[in-house]
Structures are given as structure tokens and as C-alpha cells.
């Protein structure tokens, strides 16, 4: 387990300060939100009660944070040990991603000081999809940090603790696979109850399955994306053999996703809506083109072996999964005549700020803690 090493280097760099500045702006607006209420900083309304804080920070954000989940599925469940060096950076990104999603929820919910009611059995309401999502995500944040904790223990040279942790880790690894399977699908199920308010291109009982499959795919895509970005920015070698082998899984996942996606639409007789030339239809087409691009590129060995095409495929898949989620939560959502939603500046800056905190903290962690694989000449 000691194949990872701190990347080293200066903490305070130009990009780091850039993200800190964005974080400060975000925090100022968050303070404003707590003083004056949600309406003072957001364009949320009774028609569109959920905006980008839910659609992006939580729904897309946790899907971006599925790297740890997708890799655990591969390394520990399918027992493909060769991908092990990728696990730690992925886990770190997942832990940050989920923690920040949790933080966003505390900004978003109106009566945040009562959020512990979710954990009180006399209040919990088991028919609620939201309850399952909330409990699963809360528990998973904890599990992720436990999974990542050996990194701290190595850093602190706490050998005894590390041994115990490693011995018991299989339990948390198992939980770390079960919980995202549950809540990533349920994040899709959330929209089932909105009924006719969600356009038929997205309102389907298969939405939990689609959300889950796309989250797993996005998990592998984010691993590739982060490896390439940290290699470039930290001037390290890209782990190409590993990444190109990993990318071979992606076409299969996208293939299954598209079969379910289009099979469902054909069976329900709603596929025609995609070609009406309206906003919703066009967004559906764009969403699925973004899925097809990485499918085509990564189906060929040439596509898998070039860092550039690997990177663009990963980006395309991340955008595809994100757009699917934006469509299902915002673009395809219509509460009735008279309602409109587009995020306000301050609302957007809160999201940008939270993401910036995540990136800045990630930069500090990989430089100081043994996270990234030891390349020998780092």
C-alpha cells in the first residue's frame, strides 16, 4: 500500500490563489444567504424550487465523485489489482466531491438547523426517496474518509493503527460500493414523483438504472480526467498503459446505457419527441451525441492509446452524464406556465466557490500527502 508518495512542490501557486479567490467570493454570498434567505442570492422559485445547487453541486457533483466507487468495483470486487495505483487519488477526489455536495446541501436546504431530523427515527419517512438519498450520502461521506484514512496514517507514520485499518478495510470497501449503488440510482428515482412536470424524454421508471450506469461510466471518466490533469499540471508522466486499459471498459458501459435509454423510449413510443427541433428535443440529442463520441473513440485501440483522445473521450462522457442530469432536473422540468429559471450570478458564484474550495484542497493534499502513485522520478 505504500506505492504512493507526496508529489511535493510549492503550495501557494498562481492557480491555487485563483481558486482561493473564487472560494472567497462564494463564501461571501453564502454568508449573505444565511442572513437574508435563499431568495436574496438565488433565482429559485416555488415553480423551480431546485436549481443548480441541487442539479450541479449534488447530482452532478456526486456523479463526478464516483471515481472511488467505480475503481473499487474494479479493483476490489472484480479483483483487478493492477489498477490499484489509481485508487488513492480517485478516493481523495471522491471524498472531496461528496463532502462538498454535503456542504452544498447545507447551503440549499431552508431549515438547515433541523437537518439532523433526517437521522431521528420518529421523523424519518421511509417512503421518501429523499430520505434514502440523504442517509446514504451522509453515511458514504463517512465511509469515504475512512477509506482514505490510511493516507493520513502513513503520513503520521502511525504503523499500528495503519495495520488495524488495513485489516478491517474490506468492510468499508464493501460499504463504499453498496452505498453509491443505492444512492446514485435513487438520485434518478427522485424525479419519478414529479410526474408530468418532467418531460417524457426523461420521465421514466428506468431513470434509476440510467443514473446508476452513467454514474459508473462517469467514475471511470473522472479517473482518466484527473490522472491526465494532475500529470500535466504536476509535470509527471501520464499512467498511459493503465489508463488505456481502463478506458476499454467505458464503451461497454456506454453501450449498455444507450440500449436501456433508447429501448425504453422506443417501448414507450416517446422517441419521436427527440426530433421535434425544440429546446428539450435538441438537448436530448446533444446529451446522447456526447455519450456516443467516447463510445466510438474508445472502441478502437488507437483511441485508447492516445492520451489526447483518451482525455477528450473522458471529457465528453463527463459532459454527457452531466447534461443527462441537468436535463432530468432542470431543462426537462416544467412546473407549468409562468415559471422560469436561470441561475443568478450570486447563486452561480456559490457553486463556483464550493468547487474551488474542493480543487484548492485537492492541490494541497496531493502535494503533501502520499496520494499519487510513485513514478520513480517524480
Amino acid at each position, binding site marked *: 500500500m505504500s506505492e504512493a508518495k507526496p508529489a511535493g512542490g510549492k503550495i501557494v501557486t498562481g492557480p491555487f490563489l485563483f481558486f482561493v479567490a473564487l472560494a472567497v467570493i462564494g463564501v461571501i454570498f453564502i454568508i449573505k444567504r444565511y442572513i437574508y434567505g435563499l431568495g436574496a442570492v438565488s433565482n429559485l422559485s416555488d415553480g423551480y424550487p431546485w436549481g443548480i445547487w441541487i442539479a450541479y453541486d449534488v447530482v452532478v457533483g456526486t456523479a463526478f465523485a464516483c471515481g472511488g466507487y467505480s475503481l473499487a468495483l474494479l479493483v476490489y*470486487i472484480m479483483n483487478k489489482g493492477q489498477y490499484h495505483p489509481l485508487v488513492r487519488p480517485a478516493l481523495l477526489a471522491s471524498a472531496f466531491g461528496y463532502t462538498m455536495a454535503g456542504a452544498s446541501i447545507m447551503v440549499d436546504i*431552508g*431549515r438547515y438547523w433541523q437537518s439532523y431530523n433526517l437521522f431521528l427515527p420518529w421523523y424519518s419517512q421511509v*417512503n421518501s426517496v429523499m430520505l434514502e438519498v440523504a442517509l446514504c450520502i451522509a453515511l458514504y461521506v463517512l465511509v469515504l474518509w475512512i477509506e482514505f484514512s490510511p493516507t493520513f496514517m502513513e503520513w503520521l507514520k502511525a504503523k499500528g493503527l495503519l495495520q488495524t485499518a488495513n485489516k478491517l478495510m474490506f468492510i468499508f470497501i464493501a460499504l463504499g460500493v453498496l452505498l453509491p449503488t443505492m444512492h446514485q440510482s435513487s438520485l434518478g*428515482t427522485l424525479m419519478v414523483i*414529479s410526474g408530468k412536470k418532467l418531460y417524457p424524454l426523461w420521465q421514466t421508471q428506468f431513470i434509476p438504472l440510467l443514473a446508476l450506469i452513467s454514474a459508473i461510466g462517469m467514475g471511470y471518466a473522472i479517473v482518466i480526467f484527473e490522472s491526465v490533469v494532475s500529470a500535466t499540471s504536476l509535470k509527471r508522466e501520464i499512467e498511459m498503459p493503465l489508463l488505456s486499459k481502463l478506458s476499454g471498459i467505458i464503451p461497454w458501459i456506454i453501450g449498455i446505457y444507450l440500449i436501456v435509454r433508447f429501448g425504453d423510449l422506443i417501448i414507450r413510443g416517446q422517441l419521436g419527441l427527440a426530433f421535434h427541433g425544440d429546446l428539450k428535443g435538441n438537448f436530448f440529442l446533444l446529451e446522447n451525441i456526447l455519450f456516443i463520441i467516447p463510445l466510438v473513440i474508445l472502441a478502437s485501440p488507437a483511441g485508447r492509446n492516445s492520451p489526447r483522445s483518451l482525455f477528450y473521450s473522458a471529457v465528453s462522457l463527463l459532459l454527457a452524464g452531466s447534461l443527462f442530469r441537468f436535463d432530468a432536473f432542470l431543462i426537462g422540468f416544467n412546473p407549468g406556465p409562468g415559471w422560469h429559471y436561470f441561475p443568478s450570478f450570486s447563486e452561480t458564484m456559490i457553486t463556483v466557490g464550493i468547487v474551488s474550495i474542493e480543487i484548492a484542497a485537492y492541490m494541497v493534499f496531493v502535494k503533501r500527502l502520499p496520494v499519487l502513485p510513485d513514478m520513480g522520478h517524480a
Partner: protein
Amino acid sequence: MDIERRDFLKIAAGSSLLLAAGESSALMRPPKSMPPEAVGMFYDSTICIGCKVCQKACKESNKLPAEHTVIGPEMSIPVWDNPIDLSGKTYNIIKCYKSGTAENKNQEENGFAFIQRHCMHCVDPACVSACPVSALRKNPTNGVVTYNKDACIGCRYCQVACPFNIPKMEWDNPFPQIRKCQFCDHRFKEGKFSACCEFCPTGASIFGPAKDLLEEARKRLTLKPGQYYDYPVATVNSKQKQRQKVAAYVNYIYGEKEAGGTQFIMLSGVPFDKLGMPSLSDKSDAALSEGLQHTLYKGMIAPAAVLAGLIFAAYRSTKNDK
């Protein structure tokens, strides 16, 4: 050890097959039925005169503040008594439909009509199914859907779920609540009933047992336009009546079937879609949502089985590591 892994995959495949079984009705849980002593409200648009006394009574009874809006041709006249829609400050509203010259009441073309909007108190409420912390509850006896601010976390899933867009948020309050009509259930223990019905002068809004209201609505649909009818005032079984000329009804009771049925029903002389009422299926969306969840998570058996498989697999992999 391969066996456990295969088992896990079987379970995983099995649960996706369950989803793939298609046929939405297979996954829906059965619909809910009207509570035994359900109370309700019945609004007859044809005899509503748009006086908005119900709005005033509602605000007084629920201690809601006035809303400042602007009216007039150039939106230049400020007023305090004309909320434009339901909101965190307004539980009940009378809206007006106008067409062309708006000459005659209860007429679709060149006519006008009123509509009263507030919580429908669904038989199978999506908001109650959505709420993670039981802040929204349906009274098992009288069926009133109530809100408990001490439970609510402000996640607004009820707003996403409600097909009628009824629950409202206090967006300008740093300590907001969800607000909506609760049929004035705080007046029940004083022996009173919903304020909007008590003060309605024409009997357009009446209160009473849900089944009596439905019977009354069905009876009105048998009346002939132009004949006279004694409309009960305030409650369905009231002795106080108002004799009025019967208008031509649209032959449809809105709320009898919508979203699994509601405890607020309506009659109108103008089609309901014109009055802004959504056209909904006769099943609550909560039925499919709960059906999906409980198929996957019934007794937590499937998750527990999957977890067992995962623990074996993870144990095996990490053991090989060392």
C-alpha cells in the same frame, strides 16, 4: 471463492431485471383510498362572484400578512389586497379567466369565470410521500394534509412532487417555512371549519364530509341550465340556502379522480384547463415512486444480500494484496 462473486453478480443482475420487467403498473404500489371521515371542500365556479372574501378570511384566520403588488394598465397602482398567486403569504386565491370581450360569466368564448386555488388535500398526496422527515402528514381520520415546521428541513422536495404546485417557500426569510392551506384545521377544535367556506356569501365554496360533497356535485350536474336551485351556503348540509339560476356546467367533477383523487373538488362552466388546472392521470405519482423504492429496498433484504457478497469479494481482494 468464485462462487460468492458469481452470486453477487446474480443478485446484481436480478435486481436490474426486476427493474427491466417493464409494465409500470407492475411496480406501482396499490392506490390509497379516502380516509373514513374525510372532510372536504367543494368549489362551484359558476356561482362564485369573485368577491375575494374567502381570501381575506383565509389571511385573518391563518394570520398571514398582506402582499404588496401592483395592478393597472401600466402596473403603476400599488395595492395591498391583490396577491397575484399563491405564495408563502397566501394560502388561498381567487383567479379570473377572461376571453375576448369577457361579456358573459361561465362562458368559454368572450366570457369569464373564476377559479379558487389552494391545497387539494390529495387522497394519495405526493408531498407526503416525498417528505423525508414526515413534516407533511395526512391525517388518517379526516385526511387533512398538515405541515409541521419542527420536522421540516426545507429540502423543498414537496414542491417538486406536488402536481398542483401548492406548497410554497418563504424565499425572503432566513428561517423559512413551507406554507400551504391546511383546511384551517386549527379551527376544527373550536367546532369551526375552513374560514374561506364560512365567509363565502354565495355558497361557491362549501365545506363538509367528502362523500356528501361529491354527492352534491353529482346532483348539480343533473340540473338543467336556467332552472332554479337552492345552493347550500358555508357547508354542504347547511339549512341556509341561496336560490340561484343554474348555469351550464361542464360535465366533469375536477378532483374526483385527479392524481388519485382529492378532497377539494370543483365544478365549472368553463373547461378546467382554461382555468389553469393541470390535466393529470388518475393515479398518484407517489404510487410508482414508492413502488420502485420498495421493490428494491423491501426489508433491506436486497441491499443486505449485496453487501454480504461485496464483503466477501473485498475481503478476498485485500487479502491477496498483503
